[in-house]
Every structure is written in structure tokens, then in C-alpha cells.
């Protein structure tokens, strides 16, 4: 079965355990967007070594419709998320990717995903949530921008 779209949900956690509210909001947004004709990819590692991954926590809470739900338990960063999303989209032969993340994270994540998929013909759309996240998360996001040029150059060659 070839799904119409890949709905990619980027995980979020702070090490406290359980599904973080930021992550839950992203998941709810994905559930609103997804249809039975779509594949859903839940992406994110386990910040606490032996605990469940963000992907697994999201899978447990998932209540949307989807042709199939895939997990990427290995992604430790936005760069890792994007690599997994691009690889899954290419492997599944999907033409459209819907990237689900927070508004404050969407610009950098979509820039990296577009870089990863450059030249493939795949289309990227962003479905962002409106939550503001914590101040620390937004500051950390800003500090990650110096890495964007190099990560964009790397990700396109490592899918």
C-alpha cells in the first residue's frame, strides 16, 4: 500500500518522563491532519536511557487515523528527526510530507527537511502548533541556528 502523505511528528521531552505537553499538542495537531490514507511517523529518542522514547510515548497516546504508524526511536535532535523523516518518505515513495512541530521550531526544522529533500520532487508542508514552549526551549532553538548551514549541507548527502 502506498500512502498519500507522510505526517511526521517531531517529538519533544525534557527528561521528566511521560508525554510532555508540547509533544502532546503536536500529536493532537497531527491527529487533526491525518487521514486513513496517510502514513504517520512519530520521531524522537528516549532522553532517559532506559525509559520509553518520545516516539513510543506518542504511539501510546496516538488517537488519529492513519494507514500505518511508524516509529523512529533514534532521533536525538532536529537534524536526526529530519534525516529519519526524509529517509522514510523516500522509502515509502510518498510525494507529500506534512511536518508537525511547534511554531517556534518549525522554521529551522522545515529548512533542514527541505534541504534534505532538495531535488527529490517531494513537497513539504508545515502544520505547526501555536504553543509558545518554555523560554529555555525557545532560547535553545535560537542558539541552534549557527549549525543550520552545515547541517543542511550534511543532511542532503546522508539520506
Amino acid at each position, binding site marked *: 500500500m502506498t500512502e498519500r502523505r507522510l505526517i511526521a511528528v517531531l517529538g519533544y521531552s*525534557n527528561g521528566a518522563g511521560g508525554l510532555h505537553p508540547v509533544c502532546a499538542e503536536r500529536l493532537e495537531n497531527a491527529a487533526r491532519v491525518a487521514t486513513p490514507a496517510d502514513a504517520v511517523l512519530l520521531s524522537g529518542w528516549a532522553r532517559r536511557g532506559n525509559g520509553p522514547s518520545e516516539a513510543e510515548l506518542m504511539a501510546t497516546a496516538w488517537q488519529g487515523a492513519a494507514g500505518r504508524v511508524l516509529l523512529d526511536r533514534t532521533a*536525538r*535532535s*532536529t*537534524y*536526526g528527526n529530519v534525516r529519519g523523516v526524509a529517509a522514510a518518505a523516500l522509502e515509502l515513495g510518498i510525494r507529500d510530507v506534512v511536518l508537525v512541530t511547534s511554531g*517556534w521550531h518549525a*522554521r529551522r526544522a522545515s*529548512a*533542514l527537511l*527541505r*534541504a534534505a529533500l*532538495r531535488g527529490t520532487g517531494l513537497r513539504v508542508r508545515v502544520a505547526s502548533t501555536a504553543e509558545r514552549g518554555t*523560554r*529555555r*526551549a*525557545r*532560547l*535553545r*532553538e*535560537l*542558539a*541552534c*541556528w*549557527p*549549525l*543550520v*548551514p*552545515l*547541517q*543542511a*549541507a*550534511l543532511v*542532503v*548527502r*546522508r539520506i
Partner: protein
Amino acid sequence: MKLSSVLAILVAALSLGGTGCGGGGSEPSEASATEEWAAGFCTALTTWTDTLEQVGDELTSSTSVEGVEEAAADVKSATETLVDDLRGLGGPDTESGEDIQQALDDLGTALDEDLAELEDAVEDVTSLTDLPGAASAIASAFQSMNEAFSSMLETLENADLRGELEDAFAQSDSCAEFSP
């Protein structure tokens, strides 16, 4: 050494996550000095991130010595402009203004050093076969920039004990994307 080997070095050197890689009244009124400072801060950062995004686009299109040199030059130019803009802002008119001005000065000094490191590394690349030797230094320069920003932003966060800056950021349209 092949390009894939160069990329492997860069990936290992960067570890690719980066540091931590993760009011107003009802009547319209003139912006306060702190709000103007916040707007200037966010505008400078937006301009800079726009350029970094463009450089990333350029680097995904092709890999050539000229492309690497051009990308490094664009990063250098944009970052120098950012440093000038932030230094030009001075500190905000808040209780912690001097601490923040010092953090911005420190950021500028650190970024100047990182840019010099980046420039030196790229100057050594005269053909694609030189990239492996430069890869570690290039990655190190970007990682160091990431750490310099983390340090400055942490100071900004810790200094704003009364939330004056947060309020100012919230009031500024320029800060809608990433207000701290």
C-alpha cells in the same frame, strides 16, 4: 579521501545536536526604550537567520570549492553584521542592562574569533581533496558559534529576573518568531 569521509568527520565533530541540539495596556502607545531594544535585537537575529537559511540552501545545491568559499563568506558577512548590530544596540534600559551589554560584547568577541577560525579553515581549501583536512576546523568553528550563542542567551535569560525583557519581546512584532 571521499566526500562521504569528509561528511563523517563533520558529523563526528559536530555531534549534530549542538549545545542543548533543542501585557501592555489596552491603548496603543509608543514603544518603550526596552521594547525598541527588543525589536532591534530580534530584527538583527531574523536578518542573520534568513542568511543562514539561504547559505544552507546554497550548500545543498552543489559542493565545490567556490561554493564552500562563497558560503563561508556569506556566513562571515552576515555574522559580522549581526555582531555590529548587537553591539550597536548596547544594553537594554533595564536593571540588568549592563550585564546584557557585557554578554553581547562577549558574544561579539567570541564570534569574531570563530569567524577567523572559519576563514582560516576555508582558506586552506584549494580543491575538494583539501576538504578532509579542513572539515574538523570548519565544524569546530560552527560548534563554537553555537556555544557562544547558548552562553549569551543563558545570560539573557538569567538576567531578566523581573521579566522586563520578556514583556518587551512579547510586545514586539519582530520577536513573534522566536521571542525569548
